């Protein structure tokens, strides 16, 4: 039978072109969006804080307008009592990030909700009430990371193993966790109960929020 009988919208050549154009079109839209997204998620961009945010108190507070919790940057509260400039802070956080990769944390934990499901999500670990008081939190975290095997916090006997984390690595990891808790995650995790970080004296106003107004 003759080729001409084939309807144009059912022909091979039409769909070949469609496949190419739809793929190319989607890819172009994705690339366009990627430029904007990458811009917004660069550290210090709209959604992801600069590394030096670890010099401040970080909280996770319900926002009426956006209808979920958002990170709020509070007054200066330097990690381990030492104010760092952006470069120093970045080096420290980076060391922590490298530690999480080299020790394979993501094959037990989720970070930003991605990873494994054998241990708690670490997105807001910095703000977890289990660390006790905000005064002792940093040292408690370091001690836990360096040797978690004798510090069981649950009834089912699931412990975190000793991963050979040095003190320096542990401090860097805490810096990484603190920094991560300040990322604007559109309210994930929802309804997270935060550790009490209020001062004995009346708490000062928050100075800024690294959040955008709703995009849509």
């Amino acid at each position, binding site marked *: 039978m003759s080729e001409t009988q084939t309807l144009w919208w*059912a022909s091979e050549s039409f769909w070949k072109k469609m496949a190419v154009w739809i793929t190319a079109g989607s890819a172009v839209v994705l690339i366009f969006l990627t430029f904007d997204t990458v811009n917004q998620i660069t550290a210090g961009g709209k959604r992801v804080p600069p590394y030096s945010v670890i010099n401040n108190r970080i909280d996770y507070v319900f926002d009426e307008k956006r209808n979920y919790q958002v990170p709020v940057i509070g007054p200066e509260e330097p990690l381990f009592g030492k104010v760092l400039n952006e470069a120093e802070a970045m080096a420290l956080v980076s060391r922590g990030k490298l530690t999480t990769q*080299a020790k394979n944390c993501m094959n037990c934990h989720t970070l930003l909700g991605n990873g494994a499901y054998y241990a708690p999500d670490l997105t807001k670990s910095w703000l977890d009430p289990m660390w006790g008081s905000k005064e002792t939190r940093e040292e408690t975290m370091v001690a836990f990371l360096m040797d978690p095997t004798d510090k069981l916090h649950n009834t089912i006997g699931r412990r975190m193993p000793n991963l050979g984390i040095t003190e320096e690595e542990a401090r860097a990891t805490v810096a990484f966790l603190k920094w991560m808790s300040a990322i604007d995650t559109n309210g994930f995790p929802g309804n997270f109960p935060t550790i009490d970080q209020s001062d004995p004296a009346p708490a000062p106003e928050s100075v800024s929020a690294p959040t955008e107004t709703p995009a849509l």
Partner: protein
Amino acid sequence: MAALGTLDSANLNGGQKLAVKFFTVAIALFGAQVLFGMLAGIQYLNPDFLFGVLDFSVNRMLHINAMVVWLLFGFIGAVYWLLEDESGTPVAGLGLGNLMFWVFTLAVVVVVLVYLLVQVGPGELKSIWLINEGREYIEAPRWADIGIVVCVLIFFYNVAATFMKGRFTGIGGVLVLDLVALAGLYLAGMWYTPNISMDQHWWWWVIHLWVEATWEVLVGCLLAYGLVKTMGVRRRIVETWLYIEVALLFGSGILGLGHHYFWIGTPEYWLAIGGFFSALEPIPLVAMVVHAVFDAGHHKLKSSNNPALAWMIAQAFGNFFGAGVWGFMHTLPQINLYTHGTQWTASHGHLAFFGAYATIVIAFVYLAVQKWRGNVWMSGDMAGGWKWKWAIFLLHAGMIGMTMALLVTGYEQSQVERAIGGSSWIAYFEAQAHVWFVQGMNWRMVSGWMFATGFVLLAWDLMTIGKRETRPARSVEVPAAAMA
């Protein structure tokens, strides 16, 4: 030529000789995947099991890496399998391809040994270069990444050069372009950044755009070849449908990436994009359903290889349920806020990977074994035909059991830990200690044992099927028009 029913590489063309090497390693790694999955599963119920020796993280990493590599080996093997037949000419640069196989396999062995024996390194870049990258699915250290890229380039050269030398069919064209995309995407996951949002943003390019775009199209090419060669469907129709599938899969899958950009720091507009494309994702599935019924109504299903056909049918269902139904159930951000990163995700991940990809690789291995034994009879009443039937039954019963068990645990976890407890440390363990969760994990293990038994049977069957068979394969006529 050797007698029917004996394994003899004289029965295979050059590309196919290489293909069966890849298939052999693939099935071995499938076994490793099952083994380490079982160890990790046991640790959920008995946390002291191998604690400090082979921790959960190590077992899980081996489990999912074995999966990625065995599926890739299976795909590479399947492409070498059809290459000469499809292009009508011997593989260009086959020697290089063979060398690549040995290098790739050796690299996999070294990586696995390092995972097992070294496990973790200091928090420095050199650990990422030498030990592991600590990023789910693509943990392989950087040196291995580079090795993989080189291997894939050689593979790509084999494929592209062979088609160029011979007949560049429509299937060949889609395949070559898809491989470019598949390899190119891997590069997106190959660099270090301290910024976890940026890291995960690019990481999803590899993972999502692999499994929901490029891998799907690769499988589309394999199935298209299968339809032409084993069922005699006309090539022009099959190729038109391949283009339709590419349009629909890429059209919904590329921006479907949005369903992973809800909560990792990426902007709010991804909630809208992810929601929109989630609604589109069922469309390619509907297209495949309608088309399959249409075809079944017009081509008599006559199969020369029953196990392969059964696994291809399993692929259609597996893809539909694992990706379509299980994906859609948790993909709207309104619910994903609470299911994100729970056993829910694991339930979907298992059914989708097994249903969409493990099945098709197994189907091709059955095709390969048949020809390897001199194209023996593999239709009804085979000697020892119970084995493949029990294997397919046990593997599916095990997988469905695991998926259902994880669904129950995920449902409980999304409520107790995520929605009520707000995902805090204490809430996490409240959910893990919940009776539904513990029961679910028990049932997962029961199903896991079933799956493992099915695997043993499958491996045994692949080694023996057709062994004493003396009848030649049932012939399925391929009309001359289909060859044009």
